[in-house]
């Protein structure tokens, strides 16, 4: 059953990608509903989704896709116009497909009602319901009357097959005598030869593509004598022989070579992509490619052969093991430094080089371009602008910039939030824009770029901008500033990130920006990043998101206090100072005069509740977080350190000032300071003290 689960997981992955691809096509159609290529692409996508979902036991999804396919069949045959109503229904249905993937049986009553409403909507588009009552039994629509059908068989021999003195080869040969047969071995479960102690222990399985003029019953009859000793799944792929497509033949040959079986879903997809290319066309294409589109298809097929799908969990395990290796390498280095054995040192150097390359390689595998989110941005901008009768174009650049996959996933919600704000509250209606002398179509620009070990993502719009004076007045009324306080432009804008400031009322009253910006900053901070805002009233707003390339490794400063080692993330580091003649004045707030400036500081020993003697000359690490500058008083600065971040586990999740830990080369553990939390707590505490004093 494991194999079946793997197949379903593969189907879910592929189906999600297909739905996303169709969503992208819809966005093209939204721009130009007459785009024939896009109409055909959408139809083909729907067709594949219908077939594969039926095969993998998603009847509602299959049915729904079938309805949709009927509509786009009429559109592609110029029997129906792709109007706004159909486009809107199509976008809604894309969302509904995602629901149907996650809730196949429609167990959730809301999903069920949504499904009924969507089907009703499609029926009303079709008007004549008989259009969708197409007679169809196979997974592919074929126009001609078939005599042969194409089938996929997955044959697994049960564990004790050979112990029963039966042989599989005659059965397979009899199958071959029925029609054209291609066997693809799956040797994944075949043991290594040195473990091949029991030749009777069956581990091999076959995926078989069979072209035959017979029914499923006839095929099953071939296995009647071994029925109890095998697991057999039979799926009808087509009501005709599809092996006249040389792409499919090559695909089977490549799968034979790899000996890792053949997924019917991949077969169907390739069939869909290439079915209109007849053998002679393909031959011509192979010898003389003259079309850009076909070049693309060919290269796409090559790509299919040269890449494999890996489950994220396996990737995470790989990354975790590489992190362990980096830690072990650091420990090895400690021993090597004290060794005089040249040979050992040479080997250690080699291992270090390989470890570094392995680490770079493994982490590069987990990097994903920001462009993977682009369709979602476009869709969001399209939906909101359409609802609000605004005209907005989204321009993107630098979206090939890559980030760790987990960061991309965590970045998506705050980014969508920023886009929502930009369209909802930033861009004006066409009438207002026209009156202001702006183009009717507003522009939102997303730009991503590398900045050292960080990535910057900037989202700017040419909308209404933020009225600083209104924000300031609101901030004063809410108690963020005193009425007579001298505050800078940045400090005013920074208020928009404060939780208490993010109410819808504020947004309407002020300039229409700031909804949930605290959520954006909090999300970024949790990723060891930050969010800043720039704006000019009437001209537009720019939100800049800064985040690290990876969460797994952190560049930090290794320090010690009371014999405990800590890592301070370098991104927050401003300067380091030695503090000679240090004395602590308990009577007042902790303040040091550094370069003529009063700097509040936190004594790390307070965190440890350690009152033992500190060194004569302690050090101060100045950290800067957003607009706040605070010192951290420590005993010693040890040096820069690249830390492999480890979670502290659930037991320590309530420890506020520590975000994780790392294992040092000598096996000692260093705690990673959560600078954001420390400063936030410090500021809260200081404000409390002030209130008490007042």
């Amino acid at each position: 059953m494991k194999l079946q689960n793997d197949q379903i997981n593969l189907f879910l992955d592929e189906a999600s990608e297909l739905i996303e691809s169709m969503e992208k096509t819809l966005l093209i159609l939204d721009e130009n509903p007459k785009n024939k290529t896009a109409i055909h692409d959408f139809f083909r996508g729907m067709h594949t989704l219908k077939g594969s979902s039926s095969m993998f036991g998603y009847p509602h999804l299959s049915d729904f896709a079938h309805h949709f396919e009927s509509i786009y069949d009429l559109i592609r045959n110029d029997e129906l116009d792709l109007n706004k109503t159909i486009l809107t229904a199509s976008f809604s249905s894309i969302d509904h497909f995602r629901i149907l993937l996650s809730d196949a049986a429609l167990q959730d009553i809301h999903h069920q009602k949504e499904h009924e409403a969507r089907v009703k909507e499609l029926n009303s588009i079709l008007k004549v319901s008989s259009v969708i009552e197409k007679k169809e039994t196979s997974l592919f629509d074929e126009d001609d009357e078939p005599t042969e059908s194409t089938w996929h068989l997955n044959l697994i021999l049960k564990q004790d097959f050979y112990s029963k003195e039966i042989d599989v080869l005659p059965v397979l040969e009899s199958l071959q005598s029925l029609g054209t047969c291609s066997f693809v071995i799956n040797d994944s479960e075949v043991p290594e030869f040195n473990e091949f102690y029991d030749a009777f222990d069956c581990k091999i399985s076959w995926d078989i593509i069979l072209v035959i003029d017979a029914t499923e019953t006839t095929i099953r009859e071939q296995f009647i004598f071994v029925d109890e000793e095998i697991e057999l799944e039979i799926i009808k792929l087509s009501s005709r022989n599809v092996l006249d497509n040389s792409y499919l033949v090559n695909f089977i040959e490549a799968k034979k070579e790899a000996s890792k079986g053949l997924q019917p879903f991949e077969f169907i997809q390739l069939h869909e992509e290439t079915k209109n290319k007849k053998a002679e066309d393909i031959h011509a294409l192979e010898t003389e490619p003259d079309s850009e589109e076909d070049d693309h298809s060919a290269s796409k097929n090559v790509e299919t052969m040269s890449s494999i799908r890996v489950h994220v969990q396996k990737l995470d395990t790989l990354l975790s093991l590489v992190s362990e290796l980096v830690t072990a390498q650091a420990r090895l280095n400690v021993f090597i430094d004290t060794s005089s054995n040249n040979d050992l040192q040479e080997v250690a150097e080699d291992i270090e080089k390989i470890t570094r390359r392995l680490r770079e390689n493994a982490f590069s595998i987990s990097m994903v371009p920001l462009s993977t989110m682009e369709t979602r941005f476009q869709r969001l901008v399209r939906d909101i602008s359409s609802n609000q009768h605004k005209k907005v174009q989204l321009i993107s650049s630098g979206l090939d910039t890559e980030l760790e996959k987990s960061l991309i996933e965590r970045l998506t919600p705050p980014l969508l939030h920023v886009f929502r704000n930009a369209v909802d509250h930033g861009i004006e209606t066409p009438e207002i824009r026209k009156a202001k002398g702006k183009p009717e179509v507003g522009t939102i620009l997303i730009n991503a770029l590398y900045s050292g070990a960080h990535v910057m993502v900037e989202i700017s719009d040419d909308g209404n901008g933020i009225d600083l004076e209104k924000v300031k007045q609101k901030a004063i009324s809410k108690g963020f500033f005193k009425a007579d306080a001298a505050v800078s432009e940045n400090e005013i804008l920074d208020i928009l990130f404060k939780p208490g400031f993010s109410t819808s009322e504020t947004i309407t009253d002020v300039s229409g920006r700031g909804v949930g910006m605290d959520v954006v900053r909090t999300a970024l901070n949790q990723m060891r990043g930050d969010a800043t805002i720039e704006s000019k009233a009437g001209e537009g707003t720019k939100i800049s998101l800064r985040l690290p390339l990876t969460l797994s490794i952190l560049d930090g400063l290794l320090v010690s206090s009371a014999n405990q080692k800590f890592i301070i993330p370098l991104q927050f580091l401003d300067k380091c100072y030695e503090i000679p003649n240090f004395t602590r004045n308990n009577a007042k707030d902790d303040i040091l005069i550094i370069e003529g400036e009063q700097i509040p500081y936190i004594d790390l020993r307070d965190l440890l509740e350690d009152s033992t003697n500190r060194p004569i000359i302690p050090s101060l690490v100045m950290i800067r977080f957003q607009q706040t500058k605070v010192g951290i008083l420590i005993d010693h600065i040890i040096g820069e350190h690249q830390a492999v971040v480890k979670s502290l586990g659930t037991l320590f999740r309530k420890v506020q000032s520590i975000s994780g830990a790392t294992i040092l080369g000598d096996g000692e553990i260093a705690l990673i300071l959560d600078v954001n939390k420390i400063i936030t707590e410090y500021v809260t505490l200081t404000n409390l003290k002030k209130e008490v004093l007042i």
Partner: protein
Amino acid sequence: MKPTEIVIEELNNSTISEFLQQNEEILSGQIPIILQFESIDGSGFQLLVSLKKLYQSTGSAFHISSSKQTLDQIRLLGLEMSMEEMK
């Protein structure tokens, strides 16, 4: 290195255990081999698949030699490997 030739008349359910015991040292994956047999059954086929995996991992040569009919049978069942028709 010249391949070592191993000859067995039938590579099947009842001969495999003995075959493996007798050739344990040669079938290490390190020595190139030509495995010659006249007929094969399902268990023998599975053994070939496992041997192919072993020799692919070590990089040593692994050929099989058999009658045209048997080689066709092996090809038909999806096993792609170096084969030569028995003289």
